[in-house]
């Protein structure tokens, strides 16, 4: 099993979620995140004083899938999140040792 972590633009979350559902993914975890990368920050002006805001709001999507589905799901996320402009985000894949469903105690792919 692998956990796929995607950092995406907040307004692309809906597209990514739709793409995941189309691939038969039954669940994922979404959290708000902030960070910086090549996109850089932006400036805001208050009473003539310029503030550079370095950390940009992003959304982190995490989904655990069976090894066989990893490539397809990653492709779906990338396709859903892409705008082609700087700041579209990153996706990475990490091995997962075990997964347990809390309610039933099922383990491994059964728990997905």
């Amino acid at each position, binding site marked *: 099993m692998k956990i796929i972590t995607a950092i995406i633009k907040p307004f692309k979350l809906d597209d990514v979620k739709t793409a995941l559902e189309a691939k038969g993914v039954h669940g994922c975890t979404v959290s708000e995140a902030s960070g910086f990368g090549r996109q850089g920050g932006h400036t*805001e*002006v208050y*009473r*003539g*004083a310029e*503030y550079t805001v370095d950390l940009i709001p992003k959304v982190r999507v995490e989904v655990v899938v069976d090894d066989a589905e990893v490539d397809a799901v990653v492709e779906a996320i990338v396709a859903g999140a892409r705008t082609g402009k700087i700041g579209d985000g990153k996706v990475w894949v990490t091995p997962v040792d075990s997964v347990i469903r809390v309610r039933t105690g099922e383990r491994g792919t059964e728990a997905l």
Partner: protein
Amino acid sequence: MEISAGDTAWVLTAAALVLLMTPGVAFFYGGMVRSKSVLNMIMMSFLAIGIVTVLWVAFGFSLAFADSGNGFIGDFSLNGLTGLVGHLAQNGGQYPIPALAFAMFQLMFAIITVALISGAVADRMKFLAWGIFAAAWVTLVYFPVAHWVFDFGSDTLGGDGAGWLANLGVLDFAGGTAVHINAGAAGLALVIVMGKRIGFGKVPMKPHSLPFVVLGASLLYFGWFGFNAGSALGANDIAALAFTNTMVATAAGVLGWLIIEKIRDGHATSLGAASGAVAGLVAITPACAFVAPWGAIAIGAIAGVICAFAVTLKYRLGFDDSLDVVGVHMVGGIVGCLLIGFFATTEVNALGKDGLFYGGTFDVLRVQAIGAGAVMAYSFGVTVILALILKYTVKLRVSKDEEQAGIDLAVHAESAYEFGESGGGGILAGVGHAGRRTEGN
């Protein structure tokens, strides 16, 4: 003279409107600070209501409006206000309203002047120090200055003894000098003694709630009709003129500030609109009963433009007047006071003067400058001394750790929001246990 129901109703209503300006300031300022200090910002205004009201009844009204004959400060003959009951208001003439109505109307001015100062010291002032400062400042600075400007003699219980600036002929209808220049100069003195916030000029100190700022400015705008039109002390022509000029100068102030922002920064901002409104309101305050509506539009627009530039000066001059009490209230007050020397016209008010644009002489401008300068110098000087005494006794500032963690928690043991960057912990804020402090065990 009999009590006029109409005049009395208007002055009592106006007094309530002016009271509303202080919570208005609390929201105006509260929205501009970070979420970790909004409660302290609001509390400074509310403490001003508490302290100034009690002192006003005890001896403040008497010091401001009783006749001592020295022109500088009143005496203690009207302490407690009981002596006013059953009398008509007298201030440079008799008004058909109860003296108590006049006393309450004037109280609201004293409150908001103190509350205005709090914007300079956001995020860092000990609450005890603020309380002592508010009591001492209103006694040593506001009460005398109100006497100078607002006391036209022949007071409530007889006698002459107008304030020396009123005697000199300074035109200040509703408090450009006594309220705005006074508060601005005090704020400047206080922050010079107190020092900057940690990280000033280095870390972003973004307003945490611009809707609060606009809400506060709107409450101020609404209340200001009481402030200016109420200062006519009657439901009459002058009140309607002051009302009209207040409306149009504020509108022009919004436009003036936004135009400067659009040209200079590229964006017209909501903070700029709220600030421009307040700048226009401040500038028209002394002038509202002495200028024609076109003059009011000019004064408001000029104030909006000048204040939009003035608020950026603190970064170059290196003092942390956190919410621009100096840039908006002192500068706006000076603009309004001096422009009376140009735009005043007896066409609209026979009791006023003619400024330079209406065939008047430089003397009008000279007298206005003396009024503005005297109040500024007195307020600044006394406040510096007061601030230094507090600094070396009770201390002016909270500790560095407390300031960085947020003054709301340190001083009030509360956090404004149960979400957001600090103070609140989102869903984690519900983790813990509820306890009750018990005594005697």
